[in-house]
C-alpha cells in the first residue's frame, strides 16, 4: 500500500500544474471560453507536446498506457484549471475505445494522429431516452456490401463541434436494452448524413446533438461486440471525471478560504466567524473524502473488471457527486453577492462542479448502480 507517486510521476504532475498555472490563468481561460470555438488549438498542441494526449495510448503506438497515476494527476490538474479542451473526450474515452476495439491497423492509423494532437475523436454514445444508461442504444447501422451506414440521434455529445471523428455506437442486431448487438463506428463529423445542432452546456463547453441519416461509417473492431469496450472506456472516463472533480473541488475550497480571509465585514475578516469556519471544515471533509474515492476509482478502473469495477466506480461517483454539490453551493454562498456574478472564478467553478456532478451519471443514478452491484455481489 502506497499513496505517494514515484518521483517521475510527481515530476509529470508538477509539470502539468505549472503549465496550467502559467498558461491557463482565469483571464487567459476566459479568452478561450469567449472565442467562437470555445477551445484553443494552441493549448491542444501544447498538451500533445507535453505527452498528455498519449497517456492512454498503448506502447506500440508510442504511448504509455495504462499510466494510472499519471492520468490521475493530470486529470486533477485539468480540474483545477477548468480545462475547456476535449482532453477527457478524445485523449481518454475515445482513445480507450479505439485501443480496446480497433484492429492493429486501426489503432496505428487513428491513435498516432490523436496523440500528436492532429486529430480529435469524441464518443457519440448517449441518446435522449437513455438518460445515463450505457446499454440503451437505439441508433442503428446497416451494411451495404462492405460499407456501413448509421442512422439515429445522439444527445449532448460533448465537444462534438471540435471533433474530426465521432465514435458512434449503433445496433447491428438485437432489440434495445441488450448489451449484445452493439457496434462502434468512426463517422467523420463533416461527412455526408451528419448534422450537428451546436450549443454550449451550463459550464460553457461546446456540445451538440448529432443527427445521423445513412451516414457512412467505418466499423471499429468486430460487429456486435462493442459493449464491453464501451463500458471499459466510460468507466475509465468516470474515474478521470472523479479526479478532475477533485481538482475543481480543491480550487473551489482554496478560493473560498482566500475570499473569506480578505472580505471584511463588521470590521473583521468574515473568516473569523465560526459559522463560516465550520462550513469550510465541512467542505474540506467533502474534498478529502472525494480525493480518497478518486484514488479508488483510478485503481479499480485499471485493475478490475465487471462487477467489482462497477461497484467501486459507482461508489466513487456518489461520494464525488455529493462533494461537488455541497462544496459548489457553499462556495457560492460564502462568496455572498460576488458568488453569483460571472466575474470571478467561483461561479465558473460552481458551474463546472454542477456539470461534473451530472457527467456520466448523477448521484442518484450511481447510488442505484451501487445498490444493484452490491446486491449482485452479495447474492453470489
Amino acid at each position, binding site marked *: 500500500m502506497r499513496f505517494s507517486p514515484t518521483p517521475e510521476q510527481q515530476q509529470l504532475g508538477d509539470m502539468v500544474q505549472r503549465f496550467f498555472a502559467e498558461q491557463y490563468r482565469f483571464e487567459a481561460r476566459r479568452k478561450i471560453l469567449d472565442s467562437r470555438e470555445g477551445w484553443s488549438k494552441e493549448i491542444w498542441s501544447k498538451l500533445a507536446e507535453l505527452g498528455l494526449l498519449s497517456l492512454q495510448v498503448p506502447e506500440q503506438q508510442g504511448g504509455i498506457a495504462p499510466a494510472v497515476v499519471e492520468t490521475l494527476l493530470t486529470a486533477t490538474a485539468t480540474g483545477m484549471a477548468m480545462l475547456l479542451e476535449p482532453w477527457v473526450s478524445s485523449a481518454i474515452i475515445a482513445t480507450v475505445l479505439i485501443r480496446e476495439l480497433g484492429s492493429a491497423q486501426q489503432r496505428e492509423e487513428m491513435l498516432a494522429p490523436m496523440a500528436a494532437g492532429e486529430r480529435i475523436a469524441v464518443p457519440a454514445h448517449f441518446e435522449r431516452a437513455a438518460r445515463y444508461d450505457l446499454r440503451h442504444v437505439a441508433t442503428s447501422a446497416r451494411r451495404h456490401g462492405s460499407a456501413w451506414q448509421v442512422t439515429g440521434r445522439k444527445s449532448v455529445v460533448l465537444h462534438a463541434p471540435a471533433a474530426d471523428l465521432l465514435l458512434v455506437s449503433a445496433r447491428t442486431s438485437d432489440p434495445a436494452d441488450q448489451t449484445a448487438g452493439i457496434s462502434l463506428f468512426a463517422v467523420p463529423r463533416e461527412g455526408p448524413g451528419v448534422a450537428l445542432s451546436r450549443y454550449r452546456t451550463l459550464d460553457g463547453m461546446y456540445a451538440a446533438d448529432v443527427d445521423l441519416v445513412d451516414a457512412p461509417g467505418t466499423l471499429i473492431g468486430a460487429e456486435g461486440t462493442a459493449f464491453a469496450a464501451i463500458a471499459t472506456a466510460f468507466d475509465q472516463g468516470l474515474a478521470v471525471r472523479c479526479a478532475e472533480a477533485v481538482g475543481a473541488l480543491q480550487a473551489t475550497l482554496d478560493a473560498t478560504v482566500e475570499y473569506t480571509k480578505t472580505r471584511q465585514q463588521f470590521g473583521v475578516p468574515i*473568516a473569523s466567524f465560526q459559522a463560516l469556519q465550520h462550513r469550510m471544515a465541512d467542505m474540506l*471533509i467533502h474534498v*478529502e473524502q*472525494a480525493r480518497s474515492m478518486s484514488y479508488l476509482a483510478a485503481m479499480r478502473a485499471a485493475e478490475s473488471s465487471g462487477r467489482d469495477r462497477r461497484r467501486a466506480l459507482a461508489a466513487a461517483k456518489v461520494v464525488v457527486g455529493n462533494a461537488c454539490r455541497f462544496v459548489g453551493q457553499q462556495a457560492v454562498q460564502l462568496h455572498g453577492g460576488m458568488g453569483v456574478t460571472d466575474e470571478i472564478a467561483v461561479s465558473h467553478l460552481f458551474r463546472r462542479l454542477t456539470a461534473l456532478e451530472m457527467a456520466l451519471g448523477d448521484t442518484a443514478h450511481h447510488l442505484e448502480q*451501487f445498490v444493484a452491484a*452490491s446486491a449482485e455481489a452479495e447474492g453470489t
Partner: protein
Amino acid sequence: MDLNFTSDELAFRDEVRSFIEANIPAETRHKVLEGLEVSRDDTIRWQQILHRRGWGGPNWPKEFGGTGWDAVRQYIFEEESAAAGTPRLLPFGLKMVGPVIMRFGNAAQQKRFLPRILSGEDWWAQGYSEPGAGSDLASLKTRAERKDGHYVVNGQKTWITLAQHANWIFCLVRTDPAVKKQAGISFLLIDMKSPGVTVRPITLLDGSQEVNEVWFEDVQVPVGNLVGDENGGWTYAKFLLGHERTNIAGVGVSKRELARLKRIASEERKDGKPLMADPGFAAQVAQVEVELMALEITNLRVLAAEAERRAPGPEASLLKIKGTEIQQSISELMMHAAGPRALPSRRGATGDVPSFGPAYAAPLAATYLNLRKTSIYGGSNEIQKNIIAQTILGL
C-alpha cells in the same frame, strides 16, 4: 500508488485472523457481535490472551514490550479484531497513558506501569473533564498542592468511562492557579484505592452506567507519580489527544456493524419482501456504505502520512468527525430496520425487559442512544471543526 496490501501484509492478516479465530472465547464474541454488554472479565481475559501471544501492545514499540508493528499492521490487526468480534482493547492504558509514560515518563514509571498495562493487571481511567471544563478543558479546577513529598488533590472529575472497573486514573490537575490557564496544569497518576477517592456512577440515556463522577478529597499522591515536569501537563494532554484520535475513525467496527445492519434488514419484511430490497431503504444503507469506503481510504492515507511524519496531524480531526457520523448513522438505520420491534428495549432505564421480538432487535435502541456520545467525546465534533479551520485551513 497502490491501494493493495503487500504479500507480507496479507500473510500477516491471515496469521492474525487464524489466531483470533482459534482463541476468542465464544461467549465474548457472541456479546460483541450482537451488541450486548461486554463485561470487565471479557475485556481483561482477551487482553491476557493477546499478551500471552506477545500481542498485548499492538500499538507499542518493542522496547516497551509492544509488537513494534508499523501503522499498516496495527491497522490490519484492528480491522481483523473488529471483524471477528473481539472486545475493544482498553484505550485508556494502551493508547492514552501508555504512550504518554513512554514519551514523557521517567524510567521508574515506565518499569512500574507499562508491563501492568500489557498484562491486564491495571485498568486505567482517564480523568480529564470536569463539570466546568468540557470543551474548554484547560479551565479545569481540580487542585494539586505539593506538601511533604506528596500532592494533595481536591476536586471533581466527570464523564470517567468505566471508572468503576479501574484501579488507576491519570488526571490533569491544576498545580499553579496564578499563571495562564494552560501553563499551570500537571499530569498525575493516581491510585484509585487512595483514601479520599469516591466513584459515583452516572446513569445514561440508554440505562447503562458506563461513565462516572470521581471525587477527590484531600487525596495524597506521591510526587513520584507526576509525569514529566510540573506545569507541563498541557503539552502531554495534547500529545495524548492526538493519539486518541488516530483510531477513532472506527472503520473496522463500522464495517462489522454495517454487515449486521444488512443482515437485520434482510430478515425484516416489508410488503412480504426483505426490507433490504426496498429501494428507499437500500439507498439509505448505500449512502452510508460509500461514505465508509471513502473513510477507509482516507484513514489509510492519514496512516501513510503519519508513517512519514511520526505524530498524528490535524487530519485526525477529519477521521473523528466522519467516523462518528458513520457509526451513528449505522446504529440509527439498524434501529429503524427493526421498526416497532426496536421499541421493547433490552437495556431500558427500568431494568431488563424480556424480548418481544427477534433477539437481534432488543439491543438496537440502546445502541442507538448510547452512540450519541461519540460525536461529543474525545473533543466534540464542533471542536474538531475548529481544529480543521485553524490548523488545516489557516482561518
